[in-house]
């Protein structure tokens, strides 16, 4: 689905943001793209969408060069950026004007999702709040039935019920042919949705594993403040609510993966984390 080889990118007068980055993503999964602020998550999404030219390296998405922006490629891509533009027209007109460009646009699904998000099809897009606009775009993006859906901070601006609806709709619309990449800071909003974690750090992919493998290889244990965690660990976090210890899952125990702790572990102790998966 997505094959990125040795890609480098930098903005003018800045050091390399992405440096010889390699990444392979398969279809039929929801990828959570995590990283610190300014690490290049949005840039990576734009490179995948063909909205930026890499300085070096190759990027192949759906067996096409994204930068060529061929209609057959764009028909299979839907990108919802964090800050977006919508024309001064109603939802109904937007659907009428732009849905025909997507050959598999599902009109009935779009209607169902508008109902679920409580959006009036006659409403002018400019009269909607930021959260409502985002819900509209999510409904439209899912109904477009594209093979690749790129979401940059999708849960920003959504209220609590909408976040739940969003998770449910994404999970329901995932097919074997479809890949969804979600770039986010709010990992807790998407914990139940993501099935692969990609962590970007220092211009390269620091971590790329499925939740299944993470569960097999690592153990996440929570201790109350003051308790001493036994045994060797890869990472220990101290937080007001209690401590989380990540260690190798030698006993093959099931534990709930804490994405925040996992992210911090990769950033703070990358070599040990990588080693845990190589064994």
């Amino acid at each position: 689905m997505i094959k990125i080889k040795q890609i480098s990118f930098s903005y003018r007068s800045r050091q390399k943001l992405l440096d010889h980055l390699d990444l392979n993503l398969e279809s039929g999964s929801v990828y959570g793209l995590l990283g610190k602020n300014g690490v290049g998550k949005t840039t990576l999404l734009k490179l995948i969408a063909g909205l930026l030219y890499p300085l070096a390296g190759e990027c192949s998405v759906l067996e096409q060069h994204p930068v060529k922006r061929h209609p057959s490629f764009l028909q299979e891509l839907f990108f919802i950026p964090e800050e977006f533009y919508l024309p001064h027209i109603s939802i109904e007109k937007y659907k009428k004007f732009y849905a025909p460009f997507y050959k598999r646009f599902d009109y009935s699904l779009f209607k169902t999702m508008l109902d679920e998000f409580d959006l009036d099809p006659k409403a002018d897009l400019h009269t909607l709040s930021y959260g409502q606009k985002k819900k509209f775009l999510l409904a439209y993006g899912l109904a477009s039935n594209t093979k690749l859906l790129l979401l940059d901070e999708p849960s920003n601006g959504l209220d609590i019920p909408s976040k739940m609806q969003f998770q449910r709709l994404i999970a329901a619309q995932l097919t074997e042919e479809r890949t969804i990449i979600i770039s986010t800071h709010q990992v807790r909003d998407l914990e139940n949705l993501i099935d692969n974690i990609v962590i970007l750090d220092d211009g390269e992919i620091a971590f790329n594993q499925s939740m299944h493998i993470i569960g097999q290889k690592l153990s996440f244990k929570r201790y109350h403040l003051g308790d001493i965690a036994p045994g060797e660990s890869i990472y220990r976090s101290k937080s007001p609510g209690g401590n989380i210890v990540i260690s190798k899952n030698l006993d093959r125990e099931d534990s709930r993966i804490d994405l925040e702790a996992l992210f911090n572990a990769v950033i703070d102790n990358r070599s040990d984390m990588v080693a845990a998966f190589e064994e």
Partner: protein
Amino acid sequence: MSFSVKRLTKLIGNEVVGKGHAIFIYTITAAIILLLIDLFNNTALEHNFHTGTFSLLLFVGGFWISSIAFTCLHSKEQSIFYLTIPCSNLEKLLSKLLLTSIIYVVALSAFYYIISLLAAFENMLVFHISQVLFNPFDPDVLRTIVYYLVLQSTFILGSIYFKRSPATKTILTLAVLVLFFIVFGFIVLNLTTKSSMLPPIMVISDLMSILHSTFLITLAPVCWVLSYLKLREAEVR
């Protein structure tokens, strides 16, 4: 290079319907102003009155809409929206180009013809004066349209190239280019008249004729190709 007539017509349709409200307002405003001008100018009009007014509307309005045709490329949010519409770069360029050139010329000619008809009727009714009608196929009008189509291509290129004040920057660039060609022409002329003993007036006339033909034939295609290449390179930074 991918091209589909269906996608192109859809893009053009979207642009027109999407901006329908603005087009309606501008058309009504222009119609009222033109009819008022005609009412105050209650004489039998000269043949070139309509050609002059039409040319003014054609150049000012056309250059303005051409210079804002690609403003969407200079805003991060709008360019993501525009560049990810499933159409090829060629279709995107052609839709804007056709709208600001041929479609604009045809629509303006039809609009102006109707206005001249209404104005003639108005003058006949109020002042009992018979006025000439606007003829879109008049050789002077057709010549003006050719010049518009050629010059308009520079404003389309300017709209893709310049982020801020594209119209002003395009006019300034054109002025610099014209100045350059005048200076270049004088230098060539000086050298030619020194080396051969041809009468200067003949050389000037020939040189002007060559420059004129070259300008008419090459300027628009060069600007179209450059516009396409620039659109293809467009990024969202």
